[in-house]
Protein backbone atom coordinates (compact mmCIF):
# COMPACT_ATOMS: atom_id res chain seq x y z
CA UNK A 1 0.00 0.00 0.00
CA UNK A 2 1.40 3.37 -1.01
CA UNK A 3 1.82 5.82 1.85
CA UNK A 4 0.64 9.41 2.05
CA UNK A 5 4.20 10.78 1.74
CA UNK A 6 4.87 8.63 -1.32
CA UNK A 7 1.76 10.02 -2.99
CA UNK A 8 2.84 13.50 -1.96
CA UNK A 9 6.24 13.03 -3.62
CA UNK A 10 4.49 12.17 -6.87
CA UNK A 11 2.36 15.30 -7.02
CA UNK A 12 4.71 17.21 -9.34
CA UNK A 13 4.90 14.29 -11.76
CA UNK A 14 1.10 14.00 -11.55
CA UNK A 15 0.80 17.70 -12.33
CA UNK A 16 3.13 17.39 -15.33
CA UNK A 17 1.34 14.31 -16.66
CA UNK A 18 4.54 12.32 -16.23
CA UNK A 19 3.10 9.25 -14.48
CA UNK A 20 2.06 5.99 -16.05
CA UNK A 21 -1.65 5.35 -16.25
CA UNK A 22 -1.94 3.08 -13.22
CA UNK A 23 0.11 5.32 -10.90
CA UNK A 24 -1.79 8.37 -12.10
CA UNK A 25 -5.09 6.71 -11.09
CA UNK A 26 -3.69 5.77 -7.69
CA UNK A 27 -2.48 9.31 -7.01
CA UNK A 28 -5.77 10.76 -8.26
CA UNK A 29 -7.77 8.55 -5.89
CA UNK A 30 -5.52 9.60 -3.02
CA UNK A 31 -5.89 13.30 -3.83
CA UNK A 32 -9.67 12.96 -3.85
CA UNK A 33 -9.61 11.58 -0.34
CA UNK A 34 -6.76 13.70 1.10
CA UNK A 35 -7.43 17.44 1.61
CA UNK A 36 -3.76 18.09 2.38
CA UNK A 37 -2.56 16.62 -0.92
CA UNK A 38 -5.41 18.30 -2.76
CA UNK A 39 -4.27 21.68 -1.44
CA UNK A 40 -0.61 20.89 -2.10
CA UNK A 41 -1.41 19.99 -5.69
CA UNK A 42 -3.20 23.28 -6.28
CA UNK A 43 -0.32 25.23 -4.78
CA UNK A 44 2.23 23.35 -6.88
CA UNK A 45 0.14 24.20 -9.94
CA UNK A 46 0.19 27.89 -9.00
CA UNK A 47 3.99 27.79 -8.52
CA UNK A 48 4.56 26.10 -11.87
CA UNK A 49 2.18 28.41 -13.73
CA UNK A 50 3.69 31.55 -12.21
CA UNK A 51 7.17 30.44 -13.13
CA UNK A 52 5.97 29.81 -16.67
CA UNK A 53 4.21 33.18 -16.86
CA UNK A 54 7.32 35.00 -15.62
CA UNK A 55 9.43 33.07 -18.13
CA UNK A 56 7.14 34.09 -20.97
CA UNK A 57 6.58 37.71 -20.04
CA UNK A 58 9.81 38.85 -18.45
CA UNK A 59 11.52 41.65 -20.35
CA UNK A 60 15.29 41.32 -20.77
CA UNK A 61 17.74 44.19 -20.64
CA UNK A 62 18.24 45.86 -24.02
CA UNK A 63 20.97 44.21 -26.08
CA UNK A 64 22.06 47.68 -27.24
CA UNK A 65 22.96 48.52 -23.64
CA UNK A 66 24.78 45.25 -23.05
CA UNK A 67 26.88 45.41 -26.22
CA UNK A 68 29.25 48.37 -25.50
CA UNK A 69 30.74 46.87 -22.29
CA UNK A 70 31.03 43.47 -23.98
CA UNK A 71 32.75 45.01 -27.00
CA UNK A 72 35.22 46.85 -24.73
CA UNK A 73 35.96 43.63 -22.87
CA UNK A 74 36.52 41.71 -26.10
CA UNK A 75 38.77 44.42 -27.49
CA UNK A 76 40.84 44.34 -24.29
CA UNK A 77 41.06 40.55 -24.51
CA UNK A 78 42.14 40.70 -28.14
CA UNK A 79 44.78 43.35 -27.40
CA UNK A 80 46.09 41.29 -24.47
CA UNK A 81 46.32 38.20 -26.66
CA UNK A 82 48.13 40.09 -29.42
CA UNK A 83 50.65 41.31 -26.84
CA UNK A 84 51.04 37.77 -25.48
CA UNK A 85 51.67 36.41 -28.99
CA UNK A 86 54.26 39.10 -29.65
CA UNK A 87 55.94 38.24 -26.35
CA UNK A 88 56.02 34.55 -27.29
CA UNK A 89 57.61 35.53 -30.60
CA UNK A 90 60.24 37.62 -28.86
CA UNK A 91 60.96 34.88 -26.31
CA UNK A 92 61.20 32.31 -29.07
CA UNK A 93 63.65 34.45 -31.01
CA UNK A 94 65.59 35.23 -27.85
CA UNK A 95 65.68 31.52 -26.95
CA UNK A 96 67.22 30.63 -30.28
CA UNK A 97 69.76 33.40 -29.87
CA UNK A 98 70.69 32.31 -26.34
CA UNK A 99 71.00 28.74 -27.48
CA UNK A 100 73.28 29.79 -30.33
CA UNK A 101 75.33 31.92 -27.95
CA UNK A 102 75.59 29.12 -25.40
CA UNK A 103 76.89 26.47 -27.76
CA UNK A 104 80.28 28.09 -28.51
CA UNK A 105 80.86 28.12 -24.73
CA UNK A 106 80.15 24.39 -24.63
CA UNK A 107 82.39 24.03 -27.65
CA UNK A 108 85.23 25.88 -25.89
CA UNK A 109 84.81 23.73 -22.78
CA UNK A 110 84.75 20.63 -24.94
CA UNK A 111 87.94 21.65 -26.67
CA UNK A 112 89.53 22.04 -23.26
CA UNK A 113 88.51 18.62 -21.98
CA UNK A 114 87.64 16.22 -24.81
CA UNK A 115 90.45 14.13 -26.26
CA UNK A 116 90.29 13.55 -29.95
CA UNK A 117 88.93 10.26 -31.11
CA UNK A 118 90.47 9.20 -34.42
CA UNK A 119 87.59 6.81 -35.10
CA UNK A 120 85.16 9.72 -35.15
CA UNK A 121 87.22 11.43 -37.75
CA UNK A 122 85.82 9.21 -40.45
CA UNK A 123 82.39 10.58 -39.72
CA UNK A 124 83.41 14.22 -39.80
CA UNK A 125 81.83 16.24 -42.54
CA UNK A 126 79.09 13.70 -42.98
CA UNK A 127 75.58 14.50 -41.86
CA UNK A 128 72.42 12.47 -41.96
CA UNK A 129 70.50 13.16 -45.15
CA UNK A 130 67.22 12.90 -43.23
CA UNK A 131 68.32 15.66 -40.84
CA UNK A 132 69.25 17.97 -43.70
CA UNK A 133 65.91 17.22 -45.40
CA UNK A 134 64.05 18.00 -42.18
CA UNK A 135 65.93 21.30 -41.83
CA UNK A 136 65.03 22.26 -45.43
CA UNK A 137 61.41 21.36 -44.97
CA UNK A 138 61.05 23.26 -41.69
CA UNK A 139 62.88 26.23 -43.14
CA UNK A 140 60.41 26.35 -46.04
CA UNK A 141 57.48 26.20 -43.59
CA UNK A 142 58.93 29.10 -41.56
CA UNK A 143 59.61 31.15 -44.70
CA UNK A 144 56.08 30.53 -45.98
CA UNK A 145 54.44 31.68 -42.75
CA UNK A 146 56.77 34.54 -41.95
CA UNK A 147 54.79 37.07 -43.99
CA UNK A 148 51.95 36.86 -41.48
CA UNK A 149 54.23 37.82 -38.58
CA UNK A 150 54.65 41.27 -37.18
CA UNK A 151 57.71 42.59 -39.20
CA UNK A 152 59.81 43.29 -36.10
CA UNK A 153 59.18 39.77 -34.74
CA UNK A 154 59.93 38.25 -38.15
CA UNK A 155 63.24 40.16 -38.29
CA UNK A 156 64.23 39.01 -34.78
CA UNK A 157 63.35 35.43 -35.61
CA UNK A 158 65.35 35.60 -38.84
CA UNK A 159 68.39 37.04 -37.07
CA UNK A 160 68.29 34.27 -34.48
CA UNK A 161 67.99 31.50 -37.05
CA UNK A 162 70.81 33.11 -39.04
CA UNK A 163 73.04 32.93 -35.95
CA UNK A 164 72.55 29.16 -35.78
CA UNK A 165 73.13 28.84 -39.54
CA UNK A 166 76.35 30.77 -39.19
CA UNK A 167 77.55 28.59 -36.26
CA UNK A 168 76.88 25.47 -38.34
CA UNK A 169 78.73 26.90 -41.34
CA UNK A 170 81.72 27.77 -39.13
CA UNK A 171 81.77 24.28 -37.62
CA UNK A 172 81.62 22.65 -41.02
CA UNK A 173 84.54 24.78 -42.18
CA UNK A 174 86.47 23.81 -39.03
CA UNK A 175 85.73 20.14 -39.72
CA UNK A 176 87.00 20.46 -43.28
CA UNK A 177 90.29 21.69 -41.87
CA UNK A 178 90.37 19.20 -39.01
CA UNK A 179 88.32 16.13 -40.05
CA UNK A 180 89.60 13.96 -37.20
CA UNK A 181 88.35 16.27 -34.43
CA UNK A 182 85.76 14.23 -32.51
CA UNK A 183 84.51 17.21 -30.62
CA UNK A 184 83.70 19.08 -33.83
CA UNK A 185 81.72 16.08 -35.09
CA UNK A 186 79.75 15.96 -31.86
CA UNK A 187 79.31 19.71 -31.80
CA UNK A 188 77.99 19.80 -35.36
CA UNK A 189 75.49 17.12 -34.46
CA UNK A 190 74.36 19.13 -31.42
CA UNK A 191 74.02 22.26 -33.50
CA UNK A 192 71.88 20.44 -36.03
CA UNK A 193 69.65 19.06 -33.28
CA UNK A 194 69.20 22.56 -31.85
CA UNK A 195 68.55 23.95 -35.30
CA UNK A 196 65.83 21.36 -35.97
CA UNK A 197 64.27 22.03 -32.60
CA UNK A 198 64.37 25.82 -33.09
CA UNK A 199 62.97 25.56 -36.62
CA UNK A 200 60.21 23.24 -35.41
CA UNK A 201 59.23 25.78 -32.72
CA UNK A 202 59.37 28.62 -35.23
CA UNK A 203 57.27 26.67 -37.77
CA UNK A 204 54.64 25.87 -35.13
CA UNK A 205 54.64 29.53 -34.11
CA UNK A 206 54.06 30.89 -37.61
CA UNK A 207 51.51 28.14 -38.35
CA UNK A 208 49.31 29.43 -35.53
CA UNK A 209 48.66 32.40 -37.78
CA UNK A 210 50.09 35.11 -35.59
Amino acid at each position, binding site marked *: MTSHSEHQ*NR*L*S*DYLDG*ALDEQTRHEVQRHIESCPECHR*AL*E*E*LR*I*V*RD*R*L*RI*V*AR*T*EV*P*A*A*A*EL*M*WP*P*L*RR*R*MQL*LQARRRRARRTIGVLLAAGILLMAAGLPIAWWRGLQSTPENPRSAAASGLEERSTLDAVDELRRAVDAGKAALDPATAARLERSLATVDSAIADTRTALTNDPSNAFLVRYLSQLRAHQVSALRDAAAYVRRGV
Partner: protein
Amino acid sequence: MAQEDTEDARLAAAGDMAAFERLHRRHAGRVQLLARRMLGADAAPEATQDAFVRAWEHLHQFHGDAEFGTWLHRLAVNLFLRMAEQRLRTERRTLELDEDLPSSTREPASAMDVHRALAKLDPSLRQVVVLHDMEGYSHEEIAQLLGITSGGSRMRLHRARTALRAWIAQ
Protein backbone atom coordinates in the same frame (compact mmCIF):
# COMPACT_ATOMS: atom_id res chain seq x y z
CA MET B 1 16.64 34.00 -38.26
CA ALA B 2 18.35 30.60 -38.20
CA GLN B 3 19.96 31.18 -41.59
CA GLU B 4 21.05 34.70 -40.66
CA ASP B 5 22.51 33.30 -37.44
CA THR B 6 24.45 30.59 -39.22
CA GLU B 7 25.87 33.07 -41.72
CA ASP B 8 26.73 35.59 -38.99
CA ALA B 9 28.32 32.86 -36.89
CA ARG B 10 30.51 31.91 -39.86
CA LEU B 11 31.54 35.54 -40.38
CA ALA B 12 32.12 36.11 -36.66
CA ALA B 13 34.26 32.97 -36.43
CA ALA B 14 36.48 34.58 -39.07
CA GLY B 15 36.82 37.67 -36.87
CA ASP B 16 33.93 39.84 -38.10
CA MET B 17 32.93 41.83 -35.00
CA ALA B 18 29.90 43.40 -36.72
CA ALA B 19 28.50 39.91 -37.39
CA PHE B 20 29.05 39.01 -33.75
CA GLU B 21 27.26 42.16 -32.68
CA ARG B 22 24.23 41.11 -34.76
CA LEU B 23 24.26 37.70 -33.06
CA HIS B 24 24.50 39.43 -29.72
CA ARG B 25 21.59 41.74 -30.55
CA ARG B 26 19.37 38.78 -31.43
CA HIS B 27 20.28 36.52 -28.50
CA ALA B 28 21.57 38.63 -25.59
CA GLY B 29 18.12 39.03 -24.06
CA ARG B 30 17.49 35.33 -23.68
CA VAL B 31 20.96 34.69 -22.28
CA GLN B 32 20.61 37.57 -19.81
CA LEU B 33 17.28 36.23 -18.54
CA LEU B 34 18.78 32.78 -18.20
CA ALA B 35 21.69 34.22 -16.20
CA ARG B 36 19.29 36.13 -14.00
CA ARG B 37 17.21 33.05 -13.31
CA MET B 38 20.12 30.74 -12.67
CA LEU B 39 22.54 33.08 -10.91
CA GLY B 40 20.52 36.07 -9.73
CA ALA B 41 20.19 39.68 -10.81
CA ASP B 42 23.53 40.81 -9.38
CA ALA B 43 25.58 38.24 -11.23
CA ALA B 44 23.59 38.33 -14.47
CA PRO B 45 25.32 41.21 -16.34
CA GLU B 46 28.83 39.79 -15.99
CA ALA B 47 27.69 36.22 -16.51
CA THR B 48 25.96 37.26 -19.74
CA GLN B 49 29.18 38.85 -20.94
CA ASP B 50 31.11 35.72 -19.96
CA ALA B 51 28.74 33.61 -22.03
CA PHE B 52 29.25 35.74 -25.12
CA VAL B 53 33.02 35.89 -24.69
CA ARG B 54 33.01 32.12 -24.42
CA ALA B 55 30.78 31.85 -27.49
CA TRP B 56 33.16 34.12 -29.42
CA GLU B 57 36.09 31.93 -28.47
CA HIS B 58 34.29 28.72 -29.42
CA LEU B 59 32.52 29.83 -32.60
CA HIS B 60 34.77 27.55 -34.63
CA GLN B 61 33.02 24.64 -32.89
CA PHE B 62 29.61 25.74 -34.19
CA HIS B 63 28.99 23.89 -37.44
CA GLY B 64 25.32 24.73 -37.95
CA ASP B 65 24.10 21.22 -36.99
CA ALA B 66 21.72 22.78 -34.46
CA GLU B 67 20.33 26.31 -34.51
CA PHE B 68 22.77 28.91 -33.24
CA GLY B 69 20.32 29.97 -30.50
CA THR B 70 20.15 26.40 -29.20
CA TRP B 71 23.94 26.03 -29.31
CA LEU B 72 24.43 29.34 -27.48
CA HIS B 73 21.76 28.53 -24.89
CA ARG B 74 23.35 25.19 -24.13
CA LEU B 75 26.79 26.80 -23.86
CA ALA B 76 25.36 29.41 -21.47
CA VAL B 77 23.55 26.80 -19.35
CA ASN B 78 26.77 24.81 -18.95
CA LEU B 79 28.74 27.92 -18.08
CA PHE B 80 26.18 29.14 -15.54
CA LEU B 81 25.97 25.71 -13.93
CA ARG B 82 29.74 25.79 -13.41
CA MET B 83 29.54 29.32 -12.02
CA ALA B 84 26.79 28.27 -9.61
CA GLU B 85 28.90 25.32 -8.52
CA GLN B 86 31.93 27.56 -7.89
CA ARG B 87 29.80 29.97 -5.93
CA LEU B 88 28.44 27.10 -3.88
CA ARG B 89 31.94 26.22 -2.76
CA THR B 90 32.35 29.60 -1.14
CA GLU B 91 28.89 30.27 0.20
CA ARG B 92 26.66 27.47 1.28
CA ARG B 93 23.06 28.49 0.86
CA THR B 94 20.22 26.79 2.61
CA LEU B 95 16.57 26.55 2.00
CA GLU B 96 15.31 29.61 3.80
CA LEU B 97 11.87 30.67 2.78
CA ASP B 98 11.35 32.68 5.89
CA GLU B 99 10.44 35.99 7.43
CA ASP B 100 12.10 38.26 4.88
CA LEU B 101 9.80 37.02 2.17
CA PRO B 102 6.43 38.71 1.72
CA SER B 103 3.58 37.46 3.86
CA SER B 104 0.56 35.63 2.56
CA THR B 105 -1.38 38.90 2.42
CA ARG B 106 0.88 40.48 -0.18
CA GLU B 107 0.21 41.08 -3.86
CA PRO B 108 0.44 38.13 -6.27
CA ALA B 109 4.02 37.22 -7.11
CA SER B 110 5.67 39.56 -9.59
CA ALA B 111 8.72 38.63 -11.63
CA MET B 112 10.86 40.26 -8.96
CA ASP B 113 9.21 38.20 -6.23
CA VAL B 114 9.82 35.05 -8.23
CA HIS B 115 13.48 35.92 -8.57
CA ARG B 116 13.78 36.64 -4.86
CA ALA B 117 12.26 33.27 -4.09
CA LEU B 118 14.51 31.51 -6.59
CA ALA B 119 17.53 33.19 -5.01
CA LYS B 120 16.61 31.61 -1.70
CA LEU B 121 16.55 28.10 -3.10
CA ASP B 122 19.39 25.70 -2.71
CA PRO B 123 21.28 25.98 -6.04
CA SER B 124 20.85 22.30 -6.86
CA LEU B 125 17.06 22.76 -6.70
CA ARG B 126 17.10 26.14 -8.36
CA GLN B 127 18.91 24.93 -11.48
CA VAL B 128 16.37 22.18 -12.02
CA VAL B 129 13.25 24.30 -11.53
CA VAL B 130 14.63 27.08 -13.75
CA LEU B 131 15.64 24.70 -16.52
CA HIS B 132 12.39 22.70 -16.37
CA ASP B 133 9.67 25.24 -15.62
CA MET B 134 11.19 28.38 -17.13
CA GLU B 135 13.51 27.20 -19.89
CA GLY B 136 11.52 24.18 -21.05
CA TYR B 137 14.19 21.49 -20.65
CA SER B 138 13.05 17.88 -20.17
CA HIS B 139 14.14 15.80 -17.19
CA GLU B 140 16.32 13.72 -19.49
CA GLU B 141 18.12 16.82 -20.77
CA ILE B 142 18.55 18.20 -17.25
CA ALA B 143 19.87 14.85 -16.06
CA GLN B 144 22.48 14.94 -18.81
CA LEU B 145 23.48 18.53 -18.04
CA LEU B 146 23.79 17.99 -14.30
CA GLY B 147 25.16 14.47 -14.37
CA ILE B 148 22.25 13.04 -12.40
CA THR B 149 19.46 10.59 -13.20
CA SER B 150 16.14 11.74 -14.62
CA GLY B 151 14.56 10.40 -11.42
CA GLY B 152 16.88 12.67 -9.47
CA SER B 153 15.83 15.59 -11.64
CA ARG B 154 12.12 14.83 -10.94
CA MET B 155 12.79 14.64 -7.23
CA ARG B 156 14.65 17.96 -7.22
CA LEU B 157 11.89 19.62 -9.22
CA HIS B 158 9.29 18.47 -6.72
CA ARG B 159 11.37 19.66 -3.78
CA ALA B 160 11.97 23.02 -5.45
CA ARG B 161 8.30 23.59 -6.21
CA THR B 162 7.35 22.49 -2.70
CA ALA B 163 9.81 25.00 -1.23
CA LEU B 164 8.54 27.78 -3.50
CA ARG B 165 4.94 26.90 -2.60
CA ALA B 166 5.42 28.28 0.86
CA TRP B 167 5.65 31.71 -0.64
CA ILE B 168 4.74 31.99 -4.31
CA ALA B 169 1.48 30.06 -4.07
CA GLN B 170 0.05 31.86 -1.03
